[in-house]
């Protein structure tokens, strides 16, 4: 696929920061100095030690995968793929199906994306293209703070502020206006899928927005200038010169946000309602994969129950790894040709 903004890649600059992909030019002097006898052993040992630490990262991921698979073997053998399509969750009789949790995770993440993506892109557009220079620093700092707030604090805020707000004002209004669609019906508890989706959207917004910003600043200025020179308005410049060139990276950042939303635990656990049922209404309590683990793991008395919970964790692990890898590849595809930052 041809991405216009990568045409600037041939002019590789000489400073080290911009040539992430390239090995440093090995000067003969440097090679000579490194090969001398006295420090050659110590150097090799040091390099080896660093390598061991780097390989430890592989080791950790492999170990996590191994532990998850070996601890969930019981349910994998017993239920097979049916585990992901069954909707019974009956620890007493040893019958397990993860469908309600998968449904809860997927739907709450979709709600989060629907709310967060337009806002995140709007924020990124404002910060990179429209914002007065004076405001840019503080606003970027504020969104960074949003990313640094721990999940449990979001949950606390959601329980005591967001949920009452939804219950008293937003939900009755939604039921009146959009009740006919069938997704805003039923008893109004405040907690439920909608609350979980909204708190998730606040949490993934900074990630999507900061990555989108990065991708958008990677679009060369010449692209903007060219579109402006053709007589475009500022919005047309943003749409045709920036967003179109950055779209793959933006999709990547959205997927990264999705990865975060899928695995988010504490805030969701506190507001989703924790009821393993599939309901078509967004106002009804639900359950998510991460929150069932958080709530029931220490209570899981027998082997099969524990194994079922670990298998949910395994599914979560595999899905987030795939989602993250995909997102990284997409973001990388756009930013690798970018000029050095600050240039």
């Amino acid at each position: 696929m041809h991405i216009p903004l990568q045409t600037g890649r041939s002019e590789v600059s000489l400073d080290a920061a911009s040539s992430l992909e390239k090995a440093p030019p090995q000067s003969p002097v440097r090679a000579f100095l490194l090969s001398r006898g006295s420090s050659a052993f110590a150097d090799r040992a040091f390099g080896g030690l660093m390598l061991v630490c780097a390989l430890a990262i592989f080791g950790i991921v492999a170990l996590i995968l191994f532990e998850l698979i070996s601890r969930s073997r019981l349910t994998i053998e017993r239920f097979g793929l049916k585990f992901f399509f069954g909707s019974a969750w009956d620890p007493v009789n040893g019958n397990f199906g993860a469908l309600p949790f998968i449904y809860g995770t997927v739907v709450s993440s979709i709600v989060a994306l629907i709310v967060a993506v337009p806002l995140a892109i709007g924020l990124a557009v404002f910060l990179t293209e429209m914002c007065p220079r004076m405001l840019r620093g503080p606003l970027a700092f504020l969104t960074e703070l949003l990313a640094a707030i721990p999940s449990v604090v979001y949950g606390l805020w959601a329980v005591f502020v967001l949920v009452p707000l939804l219950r008293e004002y937003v939900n009755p209004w939604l039921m009146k206006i959009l009740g006919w669609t069938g997704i805003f019906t039923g008893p109004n508890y405040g907690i439920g899928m909608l609350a979980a989706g909204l708190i998730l959207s606040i949490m993934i917004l900074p990630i999507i927005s900061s990555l989108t910003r990065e991708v958008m600043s990677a679009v060369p200025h010449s692209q903007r200038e060219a579109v402006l020179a053709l007589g475009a308005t500022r919005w047309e410049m943003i749409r045709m010169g920036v967003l179109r060139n950055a779209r793959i990276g933006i999709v990547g950042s959205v997927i990264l946000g999705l990865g975060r939303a899928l695995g988010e635990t504490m805030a969701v656990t506190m507001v989703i309602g924790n009821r393993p049922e599939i309901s078509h209404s967004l106002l009804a309590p639900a359950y998510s994969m991460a929150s069932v683990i958080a709530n029931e793991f220490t209570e899981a008395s027998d082997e099969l129950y524990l194994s079922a919970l670990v298998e949910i964790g395994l599914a979560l692990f595999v899905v987030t790894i795939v989602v993250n890898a995909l997102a990284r590849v997409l973001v990388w595809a756009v930013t690798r040709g970018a000029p050095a930052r600050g240039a």
Partner: protein
Amino acid sequence: MASRTANLPLQGRKYTRAWRTFANHMATVVAVGSTILVVMPLVAIFIYLIYKGASSLNFAFFTQIPKPVGEAGGGMANAIAGSAVLLAIASLIGVPVGIASGIYISEFGRGTRIANMVRFTADVLNGVPSIVMGIAIYSLIVLPQKHFSALAGGVALGIMMVPTITRTTEEMLLMVPLSVREAALGLGVPNWRSVLSITLRTASPGVITGCMLAFARVAGETAPLLFTALGNQFWSTNINEPIAALPLQIFVYAISPYDEWHRLAWAGALVLIVLIVVSVALVRYVAGRGVLKGAS
């Protein structure tokens, strides 16, 4: 490209001047509007935290351990100490491994396939849900030991620190000019000394920034502690026993039905947020004016 000129985007019937100006203004309004919508919840969270937290924060909060249900007062001294113990263990694991991997990617394996794969794996590890990390450590440490412990919680947090530190260390080391390294080597310094006391030293503000960011991130993590450190109502700093932690305590108190505990949860959240905001602000300050300006 030539075939595209037939339907250039600006040639449609609706591209009258008035419509284009209108669309331009609308876009500005939408962008400003979404910025306001994003900033609003943040401001709301902070105002509410300060309002609720400050009114319930007192001296006893830092010096007393929780009182039984129904009694007023009490504090979270044990949770603060517990968090300190957990974070110390985490840093002991995460910081050396993270920095060493960053050094490997940037100084020894730069451009090689192994280095690229390590970088990619670190990014992927960064996205692993923290609850899954909890399960893995549970089955690695808690099950063989047959009891919950501060050690298990610390290890879980330490592993979560590694990817952030690795990536920032690598990025910071890449900004050190090659000539600095060559000057050191030219003076007869062995390569390992040059890496440690020249390259790493030059990049140290940035590397410290990365460590602080990782620290701030795991300081608020709750999910991996749920079934590793478990939590504890009493004073304990023994790393072989269940230990209390600030985020864990906030979670337990927030979902409890008691007003007194809600009050303590808000106070705890305020303490946690202040800790994190101070470190993030410090990081920005250091990164903004240090040797590696613009590197953050």
